[in-house]
């Protein structure tokens, strides 16, 4: 007997629209004057993965939230295992060509364990955070959540996959916030990372340090914690140059180029300059679907993956871009709503975590096309060509549908 599952149709509708938009964009990405190999027919594969995703979403939505909770730690350990394996056996692709992100058998690329890891970490972190009764008072109580995120983070950064690393950091803070950790606490936790970033200039770092001191004083932590935070900041400041050296040269160049793309217009800056030209020359209405000249003449690199949004910008103009951004906004707000109306803390955290994951992807990927973010190789949900990502996005949709249906939703119901 088919149990009627209440589906959150606005969410599904938005996801379908985004997927359609995305597949059309991948199709356009393949329409070039210059031969681009498999990209011309990439849209067909993307369509298949989309289909698989729909099916997967349906299957997943049949499972109960308790099931998710149960499977969280199994999935998590599996993800850790795969992440370790890929460090040994993995290979790279696209703008992440030098990273070991992909599991391949023979010449067949199976998938990226980091995709699974994102999902698994969300589930695991939600489980850990929902197991607590009250908001943590001391930072030290957050050691377990930090560990849950930290271990895969380190494994990811060893690939090294800076983009996914950023995603983990983003979802860590987002989920902590959602679980009740105060903004100030979050800031203090984040302070070493901020310290790391600001360490490029001693004066700026010094100002930050003074500010931090005031914040710590205001927060009134335990002495050990206070000292710990300050020490962590200082050590980050010192570690900064060491960590800089440990980045591969092309990643260093990427960060430098992010600050000034014209520094290396032929190589690293090239991608982003061409992307900006493509987008900027699109104007209000764009040059027409499949007719973008930058894309057609192969000036725009990675037009089917990392820079797919530049194709949208060039061909459909500002109007097209705004529609896409509006759809994403609707998606996020919808998921936040689901998180707010969830039945229990676990579901709520999972939903919010998924929203945060998508949010970081969107902001970083789209930001990258305009040189607002450094080039990191993370895909755009529902758009970027990539089977495993499309699949996991739709699995996430399935989970969200389930959470929504078990939540305090009202008439947002559509029987399947």
């Amino acid at each position: 007997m088919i149990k009627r599952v209440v589906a959150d149709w606005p969410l599904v509708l938005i996801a379908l629209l985004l997927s359609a938009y995305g597949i059309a964009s991948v199709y356009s990405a393949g329409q070039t004057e210059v031969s681009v190999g498999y990209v011309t027919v990439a849209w067909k594969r993307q369509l298949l993965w989309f289909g698989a995703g729909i099916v997967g979403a349906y299957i997943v939505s049949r499972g109960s939230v308790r099931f998710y909770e149960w499977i969280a730690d199994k999935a998590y350990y599996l993800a850790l295992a795969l992440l370790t394996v890929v460090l040994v056996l993995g290979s790279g692709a696209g703008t992440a060509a030098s990273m070991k992100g992909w599991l391949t058998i023979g010449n067949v690329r199976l998938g990226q364990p980091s995709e699974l890891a994102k999902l698994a970490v969300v589930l695991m972190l939600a489980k850990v955070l929902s197991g607590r009764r009250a908001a943590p008072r001391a930072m030290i109580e957050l050691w377990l959540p930090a560990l849950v995120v930290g271990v895969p983070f380190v494994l990811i950064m060893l690939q090294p996959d800076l983009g996914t690393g950023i995603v983990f950091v983003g979802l860590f803070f987002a989920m902590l916030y959602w679980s009740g950790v105060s903004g100030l606490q979050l800031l203090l936790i984040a302070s070493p990372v901020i310290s790391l970033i600001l360490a490029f200039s001693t004066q700026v770092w010094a100002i930050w340090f003074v500010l931090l001191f005031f914040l710590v004083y205001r927060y009134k932590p335990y002495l050990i914690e206070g000292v710990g935070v300050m020490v962590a900041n200082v050590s980050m400041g010192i570690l900064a140059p060491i960590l800089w050296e440990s980045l591969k040269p092309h990643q260093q160049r990427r960060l430098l180029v992010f600050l000034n793309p014209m520094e290396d217009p032929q190589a690293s800056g090239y991608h982003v300059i061409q992307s900006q030209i493509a987008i900027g020359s699109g104007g209000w209405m764009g040059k027409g679907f499949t007719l973008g000249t930058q894309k057609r003449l192969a000036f725009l690199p990675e037009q089917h993956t990392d820079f797919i949004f530049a194709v949208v910008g060039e061909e459909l103009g500002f109007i097209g871009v705004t529609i896409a951004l509006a759809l994403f906004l609707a998606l996020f707000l919808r998921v936040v709503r689901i998180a707010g109306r969830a039945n229990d803390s676990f579901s709520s955290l999972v939903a919010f975590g998924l929203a945060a994951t998508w949010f970081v992807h969107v902001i970083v990927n789209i930001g990258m096309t305009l040189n607002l973010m450094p080039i990191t190789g993370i895909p755009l949900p529902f758009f970027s060509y990539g089977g495993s990502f499309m699949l996991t996005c739709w699995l996430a949709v399935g989970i969200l549908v389930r959470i929504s249906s078990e939540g305090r939703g009202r008439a947002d119901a559509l029987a399947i």
Partner: protein
Amino acid sequence: MSFHPNDVQRRSRMASGFIAIAIAWLTMSFFRAQVVQNEAYSLQSTKNRLREIPLIAPRGVVYDRRGQVIAESVPGYSVSLLSPSPDSLRATLRRFATMISLSDEEIESAVRRLRREPNRPTVVLSDATFDQVSVLEEQRTEFPGLIIQAAPKRFYPDGPAVSAFVGYTGEITESELNSPTYTGYQSGQQVGKAGLERQYEPELRGREGSRFVVVDARGRVVQAANAQPDIPAVGPAPLQTNIDLELQRFVANLFGDSLQGGLVAMDPSTGAVLALHSAPTFDPNRFIGGIPKEYWDQLRNDARKPLYNKALQGVYPPASTFKLATSVIGLERGLVTLDDRMPQSCTGGFYYGRYFRCWEKKGHGHLTLREAIAKSCDVYFYQLGLRIGLTNLLAGGVKLQFRERSGIDLPSESRPIWPYAVDYFNRRYGPGGWNPSVVLSLAIGQADNSQTILNMARFYSALATDGSIAKPELVRRAPQRTKIFALTSDQMTGVREALTDVVSTRGTAASARIEGVVVAGKTGTAQHHEAGKPDHAWFVGFAPYESPKIVVAVMVEYGAHGYMAARLATKAMSHYLKQVTIAPPTTGD
């Protein structure tokens, strides 16, 4: 965990707000890029995909005074390649080299050209033969970036006959590209390298046009059409010269292959240069498209120096032709008259510190100035020089412009030598290192006096008119005249009569007489320092004596006797004057 509904609501609102702000920020950034900065990006997008191919303009035609062609453009071909990178260019050129012959050096210089200007098609062959072009055209589909265009080629129908003044064109060199004279030029373009071609480069140069092609990110041509419309090339107005091509050809023929020297023929009243010749000649047509190495070596190694322009660059002691200058200086200062005799008669030599010979060992006897000019008596002029005095003679020479270049509109004119004052000798040889008797040598056109053939023609055009010289011009312009001496009309008549005597039975150029025309002029035999070789032969004169229409100055290297030069000069004058009476110039004299 605090999941009280109120807390959840608050966090929900905060999160939504944060997300909305982030999306708004992205939207604004896109607005800025796509709307505000649209123009700049669109321009970049277009620059990315369009490449400009220059359409070569023809060079201006050069005409003589009657509208005959001296220099023109004939159809030719240029082969260029649109290449994305030096390596790709090299690879493609290596493939070319199997079909048409291309040396490694040519390949490398093409690669250098690409590096210098990566956005223009690289010229591979600026003057390809029809065969080369056919071979490449057959394989065109293999080379998508290949551009074969009509490239007008320079041609001089009279070749060697006009080589002394027309010059030649060649591809612009890297050092020329760097110099400020050639701003706005790009590699692969032709520029004038010598002569008229170089002097009038701005006037002769056409304006390039453009064709646009679409290229992809790798710089490969995608399609030739559907870009911007062509901008056609524009050729310049033709250049009109004063040269009389008929005369020029005749003069070239006179010199032939065996003689060395130069000739300048001018209109004395306007300064229009009717003919300018230097022998031996070279063929400027062989310089077009790059000089073959063997030919260049042959020219450089020829002892007769065909590349050295004897009319413009060569400086020689004017010898007896200078005696007219001495005469003018003396007459103008009132130190002598045409019928004056000098204290000492000529017995073959004159003693002043040492023995100074006259060329006629037997001596001329006691001559008047008139007769001394006709017979070219050195002894007379030694004494005239003494009478004038070194200081005044030098000053006189300066006033007669023997220190100045003529200013003809051609590059590479040499500067003549004439001492500016007595101080010159002190500076040059040291205060005790020279002898005041140098005034004797100077008076007869030797010692520190070297003039170009052009300068002598210029001086004699003053003798042919009223004492004014006109600036020699190859290209028609309003004449610029300057008076350099003032003699009475009697003195002028007397001087001219004396000059006609030179070319009469009584004179040194008796054998150069021509029938029907009275020629006035002076011979000269210039000594030089090369042992064993005959002296240089000079003749400068004008005709017809009554109202001179042409001045001719001729110098034959190692000609031995002045009348050798005189014969050439009078033949040229006669030819010209016949043409003038039979067929007056059509373009207004």
